[in-house]
């Protein structure tokens, strides 16, 4: 049990998918202007990440590996991810129309979010078991949501701050993201003994 807890913390904080691995930067910069939409985006992406990772693991171990089709891995995963994103879109449209409106174009763009494809590939590379895969991806998704919400909160504050004209808008957001990334690098000193 404790090893899963360690895995959760290490994926959410130490190896944060956005700020340390630099995957999935598109929604991180795109949907982080308001906290509530950032939280919605984080949760939708989390749902897709965990579901896609579980399906990818099953496909990899029950279909691709027995048939020796390892070279089709990326294509298969993309197929699965696209289907899961479509499914999420249908569910969100039904369950949370406001969130659906707010996320707009970024919702179908989850399909091209590289963290969603990257995490299953990392799982295969490191040879994780099924439960480990789930915990690993849940932790990463948690880290993604956390980074999104913190970043959106800071950008909301930043909207009120006096920023030099040259830096106003996206440039200062990039500076902010790099500083936040620097802060998250500090977690690599965590010791679990």
């Amino acid at each position, binding site marked *: 049990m404790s090893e899963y807890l360690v895995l959760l913390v290490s994926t959410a904080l130490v190896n944060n998918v956005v700020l340390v691995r630099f995957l999935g930067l598109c929604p991180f910069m795109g949907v982080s202007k308001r906290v509530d939409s950032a939280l919605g985006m984080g949760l939708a992406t989390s749902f897709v990440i965990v579901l896609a990772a579980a399906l990818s693991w099953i*496909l990899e171990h029950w*279909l691709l590996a027995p*048939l*020796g*089709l390892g070279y*089709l891995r990326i*294509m*298969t995963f993309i*197929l*699965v991810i696209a*289907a899961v994103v*479509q*499914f999420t879109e*249908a*569910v969100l*449209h*039904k369950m949370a*129309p406001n969130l659906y409106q707010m996320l707009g174009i970024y919702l179908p763009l989850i399909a091209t979010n590289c963290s969603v494809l990257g995490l299953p590939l990392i799982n295969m590379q490191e040879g994780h078991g099924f439960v480990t895969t789930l915990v690993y991806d849940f932790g990463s998704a948690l880290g993604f949501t956390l980074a999104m919400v913190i970043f959106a909160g800071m950008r909301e504050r930043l909207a009120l701050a006096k920023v030099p004209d040259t830096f106003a808008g996206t440039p200062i957001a990039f500076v902010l993201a790099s500083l936040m990334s620097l802060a998250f690098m500090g977690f690599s000193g965590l010791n679990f003994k």
Partner: protein
Amino acid sequence: MIAAIVSLTLLGAILGLALGVAARKFAVEGDPLIDEIEAMMPGSNCGQCGQAGCAGAARAIAEGTAPVTSCPPGGKGLAAALAAKLGVTLDLSTVVDEGPKLAQVSEEICIGCCRCLKVCPTDAIVGAAKQIHNVIREACTGCGNCVERCPTEAVAMRPVPVTLQHWVWPKPESTAAA
């Protein structure tokens, strides 16, 4: 090779089937009134009403947050039709309607800057850099976006010239005002 083709085809078919079932199960019943109003709008998403496209305008009109007269390209005809549909009384004298107008490029002033092409929602303006532009009348919806964009005021909205193809017998004055 065959295993790859068969397995991926099967996978695609299964996922497609699952998505189809999900689409049926999570279908969203939109307000039919909004759809009907949207079908009546010009559909060029020109944004002159201040809403996000014709779908947004249709929603606002159906909810009553926007007046039925808020669509400038639709003019008097659309306002009257919407008022009849929604059962609102409408004072048509407040609606400015100078008849249908289409964009026209003055060839002697156009400098071929290509700016008007980019703002046209229906791609009705043809032309290339440093070539004089022209408007395809069949495609122009008369939204007027290009007029604001033109740096030399070469684009203007002109009343549609009456040709044999679309001349109609004028209606009697009393019904035309209603």
